[in-house]
């Protein structure tokens, strides 16, 4: 059998420019971070086995998969609602086979597909992050309706995204995570950076932790 050696590349290699962007004075209003080194597996419960899948997930990570749009932070993984009876399992790693451990957990109850290399993970935070997102998303991000743990499968700039809210940053500003198909990532990054430029953007990269 042939041996392949794939070299991982960032899906943002064209769009990403580290450092400051837009408004140059004062603190950056929006922090845009590309998150790397994650495993992402789509779990779709087989018909009639939703309850079994939920139980298996609870046993594996200590949290139930959200039944409604939401993101549940468990031990070793975050479970993100993507649609009825389906969710993403997001975890730290960059191994070649993130599916096998989940196949053992769900043991025929769910269909699994590896999306680790298929999506780009972008984290957005900062004092003006909501102002920037309000320009490109129709989702109401007010605390009252989109608290920590809320999620949405929606479109930004005609591009399908999975958006969810993580725990607030140390400085109290909200933090949003966003998954987008890799082939649309450059384009979406530009859109987000343009929306945030007037508040000042600080662009960084970091592995998932």
């Amino acid at each position, binding site marked *: 059998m042939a041996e392949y050696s794939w070299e991982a590349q960032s899906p943002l290699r064209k769009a990403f420019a580290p450092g400051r962007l837009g408004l140059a004075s004062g603190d950056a209003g929006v922090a845009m971070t590309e998150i790397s080194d994650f495993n992402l597996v789509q779990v779709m419960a087989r018909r009639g086995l939703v309850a079994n899948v939920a139980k298996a997930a609870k046993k594996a990570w200590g949290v139930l998969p959200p039944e409604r749009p939401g993101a549940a932070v468990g031990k070793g993984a975050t479970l993100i609602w993507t649609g009825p009876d389906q969710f993403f399992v997001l975890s730290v790693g960059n191994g070649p086979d993130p599916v096998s451990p989940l196949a053992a957990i769900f043991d025929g109850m769910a269909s699994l597909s590896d999306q680790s290399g298929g999506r780009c993970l972008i984290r957005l935070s900062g004092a003006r992050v909501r102002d920037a997102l309000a320009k490109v998303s129709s989702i109401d991000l007010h605390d009252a309706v989109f608290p920590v743990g809320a999620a*949405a499968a929606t479109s930004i700039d005609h591009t399908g995204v999975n958006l969810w809210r993580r725990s607030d940053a140390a400085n109290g500003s909200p933090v949003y995570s966003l998954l987008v198909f890799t082939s649309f990532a450059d384009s979406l990054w530009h859109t987000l950076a343009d929306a945030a430029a007037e508040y000042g953007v600080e662009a960084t990269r970091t592995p998932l932790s």
Partner: protein
Amino acid sequence: MRIACPFCGERELGEFTYLGDAAPKRPSAFAADGAEQPDAQDLFFDYVYLRDNIAGDMDERWYHGGGCRSWLTVTRNTTTHEIKAVGAAPGAGAQKPAKAGATS
């Protein structure tokens, strides 16, 4: 126009794709005993091409491709765009949605 997806909540039209009338059912080319339906061609012509042009409430299929990727059945007034009911299309997801919304 906005549609209240029973899974996602209310979203703008741009997240949805319109299929059309939810009424047509695929006919069978064969009768129960396995014999060929003599009028199968007419039944399929009707199923594929012929549509009622309803002015008023109509059950339609819409696809939430910009969101949860579920097929929905939407009851919409074709003259006013008022939406009276939204629910999951048969076979969407393995469980029933917690609540179905209606909005115009």
